[in-house]
């Protein structure tokens, strides 16, 4: 028996050595590539390697909303401040039970109209349509039967008039140059079918006239840790995967898509919780299966500020949804793994998401279980184990801190000394505290998920810290 346990633990050791080696290498490469890319970009800007003129493609901005009465008007107001010549805004109210629609109608003096809709994608029927013009920008509000976020976005695509659309969350704000920045990759290369922007946590910022005027680490620890987490994720893996057209996620909070391609691929899947990831993976698979020359890009300068969940319970809900979405997307397109025609996207990206995102909570818990087992059969060197954990934790913290500070100083943001200290401390706490809690959440995410598939993850919303200086602006 003891021999069997020994053999088992030896195999586990080998597995974890390979697993951690792979993870460390991926993280390391990602952060290095991300940092180098951002420095390169800054140098590009210094040497005027950018598009000076304001070129544009017509864009429809789709804002799906469900019980967003607190933020919806603010969100639309920031969209109206976009420094971009041709776009429309389509707000799709997915059967809200609060005053979301009424706030929009009152604030923008919208009028009801009977508008024919071209149903290229299946979605629940509309109940009313309102239109208005604000600063010559067409504003449409669709009220529809509740059908989930994917269904709502499909309605938005059906209603939109322009060849490209942006999907964004109703609790998010764009900087005034965000549309221009996210459209840049399309102008540079018309093979781009989708482009993701960078999503950052808005809780600690002040935005005046579409520009960030004040940046502090949010006071709530739970939100501040998310700031570090987002910065690490967006700096590292997305820029790295962008190098081989392997990004599998464009955040639902801010992404640009070519409408024609999305419709050809079948649009959003209303039956999934992670409709954003599902669409991107679907586009990859569709384009590759049909031998289409395409590119899915990431634009780190296109920034969207979104509200992070303000308490642990909301954060757990959000992460549960994300994990289910990840599970659905990866299992649905599992045939892409390792296939030659899917290239590096099918190997590196898929393997990374399978091993280090989807399976990681189970693997980590399994690791903890074997540690306990090893302890009982006296096959563990405790001081070495502790040293190993300390080194590994130190490595993780260092990467988080590097990612955060790279984001800060390549974007000309100033931090107070207190925020610097908090960042360093929180990077440790995020690794051993938040990460552990979220690991448990993700581990349990799939239990009973089919029962709650098409529900919106209702989170508590807060008003944005936003101001407008011009007459007629509203204060939030």
């Amino acid at each position, binding site marked *: 028996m003891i021999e069997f346990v020994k053999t088992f633990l030896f195999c586990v050791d080998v597995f974890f*050595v390979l697993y*951690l*080696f792979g993870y*460390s*290498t991926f993280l*390391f490469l990602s*952060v*290095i590539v991300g*940092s180098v890319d951002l*420095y390169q970009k800054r*140098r*590009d800007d*210094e*040497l*005027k*390697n*950018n*598009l*000076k*003129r304001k*070129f*544009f*493609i017509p864009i429809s901005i789709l804002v799906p909303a469900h019980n967003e009465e607190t933020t919806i008007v603010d969100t639309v107001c920031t969209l109206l401040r976009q420094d971009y010549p041709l776009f429309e805004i389509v707000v799709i109210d997915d059967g809200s039970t609060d005053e979301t629609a009424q706030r929009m109608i009152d604030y923008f003096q919208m009028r009801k*109209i*009977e*508008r*024919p809709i*071209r149903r290229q994608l299946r979605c629940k029927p509309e109940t009313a349509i309102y*239109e208005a013009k604000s600063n010559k920008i067409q504003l449409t509000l669709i009220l529809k039967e509740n059908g989930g976020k994917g269904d709502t976005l499909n309605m938005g695509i059906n209603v939109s008039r322009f060849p490209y659309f942006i999907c964004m969350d109703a609790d998010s704000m764009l900087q005034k140059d965000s549309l221009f920045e996210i459209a840049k990759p399309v*102008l*540079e290369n*018309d093979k781009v079918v989708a482009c993701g922007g960078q999503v950052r946590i808005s809780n600690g910022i002040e935005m005046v006239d579409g520009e960030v005027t004040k940046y502090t680490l949010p006071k709530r620890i739970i939100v501040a840790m998310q700031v570090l987490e987002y910065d690490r994720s967006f700096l590292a893996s997305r820029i790295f995967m962008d190098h081989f057209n392997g990004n599998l996620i464009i955040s639902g909070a801010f992404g640009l898509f070519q409408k024609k391609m999305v419709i050809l691929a079948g649009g959003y899947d209303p039956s999934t919780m992670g409709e954003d990831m599902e669409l991107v993976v679907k586009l990859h698979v569709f384009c590759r299966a049909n031998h289409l020359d395409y590119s899915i890009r990431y634009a780190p300068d296109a920034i969207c500020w979104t509200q992070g969940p303000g308490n642990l319970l909301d954060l757990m809900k959000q992460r549960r949804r994300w994990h289910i979405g990840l599970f659905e997307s990866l299992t649905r397109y599992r045939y892409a793994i390792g296939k030659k025609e899917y290239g590096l996207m099918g190997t590196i990206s898929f393997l990374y998401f399978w091993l280090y995102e989807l399976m990681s909570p189970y693997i980590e818990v399994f690791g903890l279980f074997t540690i306990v087992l090893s302890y009982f059969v006296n096959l563990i060197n405790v001081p*070495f184990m502790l*040293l*190993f954990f300390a*080194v*590994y934790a*130190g*490595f993780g913290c*260092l*990467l988080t*801190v*590097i990612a955060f*500070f*790279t984001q800060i*100083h390549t974007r000309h943001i100033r931090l107070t000394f207190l925020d610097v200290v908090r960042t360093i401390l929180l990077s440790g706490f995020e690794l051993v505290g938040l990460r552990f809690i979220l690991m448990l959440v993700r581990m349990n995410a799939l239990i009973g998920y089919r029962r709650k598939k098409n529900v919106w993850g209702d989170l508590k919303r807060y008003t944005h810290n936003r101001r407008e200086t011009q007459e007629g602006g509203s204060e939030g």
Partner: protein
Amino acid sequence: MVIRIDYLIYVYMTLCLCMLAYNLFYLGKNKWMQRRTEKQIQNQARRLQRLLLFPEKTAANVDEKIKKDLKNTHHLVVLEGTVDVLEQNPLTVKLLQAWLPTLKPVFAELIDGTMKKSVMERSYFAYLVTRFRLCGQSRNDPIATAMIQLTAQASIYCRENALGALYQCGSIDHIVKAYRVMGRHEIEHSRKLVTDGLLEFHGDREQLAQALWQNWDEFTPHYQVAFIDFIRMVSGNFRETLFPLLSQTELDREVTFAVMRYFRKYPYRPAGTVLRQTVIDWEKQDWEYAAIAAASLESYPEMETVKALLVGVQSDNWYVRDNASDSLLQLTKPLAILEMIRQLKDSYGRDMLRYKALSAGLLQLDEKGELRVAENRMAKSPRGSSNEILSAVIEADSSEEALPALQKWGNAE
């Protein structure tokens, strides 16, 4: 060989610490460089200002020193900053404009060295050539030749900066040559960038359009579309030239669409006939032709056009219906639109026209939910019944008969 994972992690940690150190080093270096550059700019601006204002009292080597240093990209950045400073000063702005051309031989000498540098630096060089207006018009101008060479670079920024310099110098030959070079290298520069860039051309744009047309067959359809879009923005004198393209069946579809858009902006009677036919008679896979033709017909106020658009409004393609409705709103008066909505049998067409008219504020709903002409559009009461007017339009066989009817239609309101 046994790999110890803890050693590997130590290695990674060391590398991460190096990365962190690099971050801090970069931050410090950046701040130091910023201060140093600002100081250098101020010093150089002072020296150059003295040279511009009091050339006889200033040592001759000041000019030489500034120009000698330019081999280094950092000194080019300082020079750009210096020019920015002096351009703000009303005393020096004109003198500076006279001094900048003296940089031309210096920049010509820099070309060989620059071509060996990174593409980012080459792109910056091209940017400065534009900024300081150093590109010459003559065929053998070394800077222009270099800029044409740079248009074949893989970097879109480098191409854009080089093209910017060429647009600014105002030489038609250089532009045509640059696009030939790009075509030869199979570079497909963004169409929007090409069209908008050509519009920034400092010479005679009409002549540039002529030159592009004369070399038409040398360009791929990708560039032909951009050129037609450019021509559309600058000249209405290409109607006869472009008209034959409208009927060429083997022509690239995007080029045909561009030509149709041209005839939307510049109506041409023979083109109107082709456009109307395109809206009426098309194969299912060619719906884009019909849709664009329907949009273009808004510039052809003839009875035949209204008839063709009424066919378009009832088309089974959404975009054709959409564009035909928009054009109908442009060509006819609200009362006629109201009558069309009442008489149209096709419900899709009716809904589209109704929505468009309501959305444009031409029609409105009364208390009973019935459609009527919007109050601000009811200037006069109609002299005949709207049914008669519509019938007159629909029944009219030729545009000669129809035009008076259309006029009457307009006067009726």
